[in-house]
């Protein structure tokens, strides 16, 4: 049994066939950039430069990955939305109306648009692999593309990102949103260790040292502390 199969068994209580396991493992492999500028990775690098432990650094970086604007937050919102919307469409609902309602309730649609760059280079290889494995024909993936088509007609920057794609693929493999959330925990882990190691290999404090003038003050002018 591979570690991936073991982990999925722990999360779902089910055993997965080799092709889904291959796809799910690729979902982990096709991201995890070792770029220490990315906020969660930066934490592991900061832990390296301050000579903290690798486990503390990587644990904190993993904790950060449950973020609102990147990482697990959008992924969880994406799978929730796709599963819920698919059920609604099966009951006769209309996609544009579902989208309008979703956005009118102040919910940010997870999995569309990207904070630092518009395109997502992970989409094509992941879809290619899913196709080659015969796992790209599921209803959630079709729905994810349909949502993208409606969104980019309105705002071209709202292209599908990796979060919506992997949410759709996971939903088509039968993962619930909670299971998907747990499956995603190690998603960025492989990129964090190199960030820690590289910073640890350099002189202590050499990663992102900030001089006093590296902080632009925008606050209150100088004043005197006195009894209230």
């Amino acid at each position, binding site marked *: 049994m591979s570690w991936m199969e073991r982990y999925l068994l722990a999360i779902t209580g089910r055993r997965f066939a080799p092709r889904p396991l291959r796809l799910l493992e690729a979902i982990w492999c096709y991201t995890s950039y070792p770029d220490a500028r990315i906020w969660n990775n930066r934490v592991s690098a900061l832990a390296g430069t301050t000579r903290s432990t690798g*486990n*503390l650094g990587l644990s904190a970086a993993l904790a950060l990955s449950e973020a609102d604007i990147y990482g697990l937050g959008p992924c969880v919102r994406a799978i929730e939305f796709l599963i819920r919307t698919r059920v609604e469409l099966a009951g006769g609902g209309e996609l544009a109306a579902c989208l309008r309602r979703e956005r009118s309730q102040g919910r940010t649609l997870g999995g569309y648009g990207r904070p630092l760059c518009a395109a997502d280079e992970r989409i094509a290889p992941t879809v290619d692999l899913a196709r080659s494995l015969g796992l790209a024909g599921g209803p959630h993936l079709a729905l994810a593309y349909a949502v993208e088509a409606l969104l980019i007609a309105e705002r071209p920057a709202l292209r599908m990102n990796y979060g919506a794609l992997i949410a759709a693929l996971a939903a088509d493999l039968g993962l619930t949103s909670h299971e998907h959330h747990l499956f995603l925990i190690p998603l960025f882990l492989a990129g964090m260790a190199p960030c820690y190691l590289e910073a640890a290999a350099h002189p202590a404090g050499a990663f992102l040292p*900030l001089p*006093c003038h*590296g902080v632009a003050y925008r*606050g209150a002018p100088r004043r005197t502390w006195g009894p209230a």
Partner: protein
Amino acid sequence: MSEEVQHLQSRIWQEEPEADNPFACRAAYCHGYDVYGEMLGRAGWAEMVYLLFRGEAPTRTQAAVLELLAVALASAGPRDAAVHAAMCGGVGGSPAAAALIAALAVGAGSLGGAREVRLAMEGWQACGRDLAAWRRRWTEPSAEPIGIFPPAEHPAGFDPHGVSTATPVRQVLAHLAALTPDSRGAWLELHRAELEGAAGHPLSLVGVAAAALTDLGFSPVQGEMLFLLLRLPGAAAHALEQAEYGHKKFPFYRLELEDGPTEKVR
């Protein structure tokens, strides 16, 4: 071509460098106040915390309320899940930071944790001192935004396992009401029984903290962060205590399987 210089931005903190080293701080100003030149020796910890979060020095009463809250929240005792988590770190010899990370993680949720404080403070923002609005909030709850936290399972600020209002809860509330007679805390004390009846559960310390933090002008996200912070002293002390006792005196509870693996295979 010159590279664009990128700066962190802060409304909170300003530092002047030493003349011989741009990385060494000569003077630090918190919201305009000279921390080491003026505040040190004159400002208390609660005043500093209030200043950091709110951007203004607290009044005497505000500082007293925060001080009172800090004492009330400093230790939840070793039965508390977050403290228990920290003790697991201590007893096994995990790093000090791991014990505190454990306390933060376990104390972050919507049962007695920081998320519950945030939700309760959102309740204060939405309902204020309007009993009918609180009743509506609990009888017709609006959909919670989808996020990484599981949905709350009980009215925030009330104890779903409580039978009656715990004595310390009433004691903290009484002190807050006495300190600030026009506050939400005082209103909460006055209407506690009605609110508890509507919520179906007795008030909890989280509910009292949420009222006090709202009175102090903190936003729900600030309250969430402060609650995590104020809970740490006890977690740290208990982690160290269990490290001293050692693992042989730390219960390793008997396992009771609900559903044996062989049974499930069949």
